[in-house]
């Protein structure tokens, strides 16, 4: 996401304006204008689905019109909003505002100036600065604003899981929440799918109504989302089994061999630089242009490494780098070999 988008989408951007009603994506109340903005597609989809459900409860003969703002032809919006003979409730969902056509910008501005009170119009903007004029008009025009920013911190994801279970009227152990986030937390959609799976599988009544840590482990125990740095840390610590298994987890959960080698190289490089440096961490950090914590960590890791081992590690990494970039048939074997050699080089 671009910085411009994040500053643009922050609720504070419209906070100075009394017209904006900010709403949580979980319970969006129908209003004649609703703006759903943010890069997390999954939350936007949930917000739209929730709104649709609420409206259907109110009027079962709801007419839903979906428009794509990027392929919009002039007049479509007015046509969809015009009252029909039978006077049923109308919901217009416009997606793709992030790449809206010029026609849509014109029609959208017109519509926002005089929205039809009997129609619920939802505008979904996926982040970016395109159509800022329309966004501003929506914000000043008294729309309901739904923010859908990606959840970056593990704590936010844990809150999300807890809320999912609360909404379904279930309970989950805090420990189980942590395990779940560690296992499938990288994608919010996957996390939500895991939650609904658990909610569907665990009986609502009886002694086992709470989802426990053991249960989550049974479902998702084999899967851990490992990053390249986790692999590198285990390898440098000389912990071969952990390094190799987290390498497999990393590859299985979508880390490419190229950044894996780069992460290993970065760690080994720091280690080699710190190897013969003398003095306090702060001095070394200043001299080598590193961060203090990097030096501290390297100093911890350096135990057990000697010069020959470092030489071997750097050589095998350079070879692996060439191999993952096309010099060998099997990039995965190349990284695995590099990790093995590094993990066993340490005395």
């Amino acid at each position, binding site marked *: 996401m671009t910085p411009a988008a994040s500053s643009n989408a922050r609720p504070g951007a419209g906070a100075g304006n009394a017209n904006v009603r900010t709403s949580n994506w979980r319970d969006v109340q129908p209003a004649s204008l609703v703006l759903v903005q943010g890069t997390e597609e999954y939350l936007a989809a949930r917000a739209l689905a929730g709104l649709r459900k609420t409206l259907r409860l109110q009027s079962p003969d709801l007419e839903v019109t979906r428009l794509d703002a990027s392929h919009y032809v002039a007049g479509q919006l007015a046509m969809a909003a015009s009252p029909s003979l039978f006077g049923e409730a109308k919901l217009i969902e416009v997606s793709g505002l992030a790449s809206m056509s010029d026609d849509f910008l014109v029609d959208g501005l017109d519509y926002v100036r005089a929205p039809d009170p009997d129609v619920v119009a939802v505008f979904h903007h996926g982040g970016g600065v395109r159509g800022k004029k329309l966004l501003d008009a929506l914000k000043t025009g008294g729309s309901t604003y739904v923010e859908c920013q990606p959840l970056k911190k593990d704590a936010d994801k844990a809150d999300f899981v807890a809320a999912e279970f609360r909404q379904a009227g279930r309970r989950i152990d805090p420990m189980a929440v942590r395990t779940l986030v560690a296992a499938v937390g990288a994608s919010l959609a996957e996390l939500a799918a895991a939650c609904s799976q658990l909610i569907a599988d665990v009986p609502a009544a009886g002694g086992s109504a709470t989802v426990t840590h053991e249960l989550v482990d049974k479902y998702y125990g084999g899967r851990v989302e490992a990053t390249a740095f986790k692999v590198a840390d285990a390898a440098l610590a000389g912990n071969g089994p952990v390094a190799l298994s987290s390498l497999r987890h990393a590859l299985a959960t979508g880390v490419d061999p190229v950044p894996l*080698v*780069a992460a290993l*190289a970065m760690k080994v*490089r720091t280690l*080699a*630089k*710190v*190897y*013969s*440096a003398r003095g306090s961490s702060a001095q070394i950090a200043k001299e*080598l242009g590193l961060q203090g914590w990097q030096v501290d960590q390297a100093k911890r890791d350096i135990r057990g490494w000697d*010069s020959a081992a*470092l*030489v071997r590690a*750097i*050589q095998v*990494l*350079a*070879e692996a*780098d*060439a191999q993952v*970039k*096309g*010099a060998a048939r099997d990039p995965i074997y190349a990284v695995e070999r590099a990790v093995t050699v590094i993990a066993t080089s340490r005395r």
Partner: protein
Amino acid sequence: MVEQLSRAAESQNPTHAWLFTGPPGSGRSNAAKAFAAALVCERTDLAERGCGECHACHTVLAGTNADVTFVATEKTTITIEEARELVTKAQDRPSSARWRVMIVGDADRMAERTTNVLLKAIEEPPPRTIWILCAPSPADVLVTIRSRCRAVSLRVPPVEDVAALLVRRDGVDPHSAAMAARAAQSHVGIARRLAQDEGARERRNAIVRLPLTLQDVSDAVRAAGSLVELATAEANSSNDVRDAAEKGNLLRSLGAPTSGALPPSIRSQVRQLEDDQKRRSKRSITDTLDRALTDLLSFYRDTLVLQLSAAANAADGSEQGQLPTSATVELVNADLRPQLQAFAAASTPETTLARMDAINNVRRRITSSNVAPLLAIEAMAVSLL
């Protein structure tokens, strides 16, 4: 060689495709240009063709002749689109000269797919078109191309000739001309830069002395870091000004607004230019590193010369008491002789060869694949310990 080429230039129907090969510094593209000039020269007297004085000769050597196309890339490869354009252009009849000449300055910088585009065009060009390809060695072009061309192989001029040229053409004093020619290993362009540019000389000195300063892993990794940094800085310093000027020109010729956001139609063209510039800068970083590694190689080459001649002395010269035979083979880094002798005595020819292998290995990786330069150089530096 010159005789052969001038006979070809005089004849009514010279060979339609030529392949000029020779190591860097042998003047492949200059030879190709001179040959092209001889082909299109305006003189009627056959013996005077390639006079260097007529309008056609002047324009060819300046690279502005309409009938002589010279292609050399500043990026890492010649793209397939560029090659297709060349093939189309080769079909045109020459506008004023007798021949249309297509020169490909670096035929080695073409992917196999790209070269295949040229195959048909080179095999059967229109009657008045002549192709000249240049590459470091015949093995650098596809065998199917090689078999369609008449090969001309050029050699590196001797050190004395290069030094004499520097004295004659650039007015360098004989002593430093000889030094520069030797240090550049007869590469004319580099010798001239070494002779005239103090900074280039210092950078080369620092690189050649690198093996003398390496003590442990930390030194090696730091030296590799500064080498890559230096190469990047050097490439950027020459490119930055040019990049900015090019972007300014593009914006002006597209009539872009001077303030505010760029319209989308212009933005895509600017991005295209920036991509090209990025590729060019990558190429110049790679070239700088390759040059530095060649200099480094010369240190070990000298070491090996000293070691092998010492071994030969010990074998046959013990009773005859000859002078060291290293006097007969010249050292590239003659000014470092004492340090080199100490260094040679401290290691064996086998380790020297292994180190040279490590350097050549990293040169191959850097120039022919997309490896991270820093990691590759680090691996080489630690192999030199």
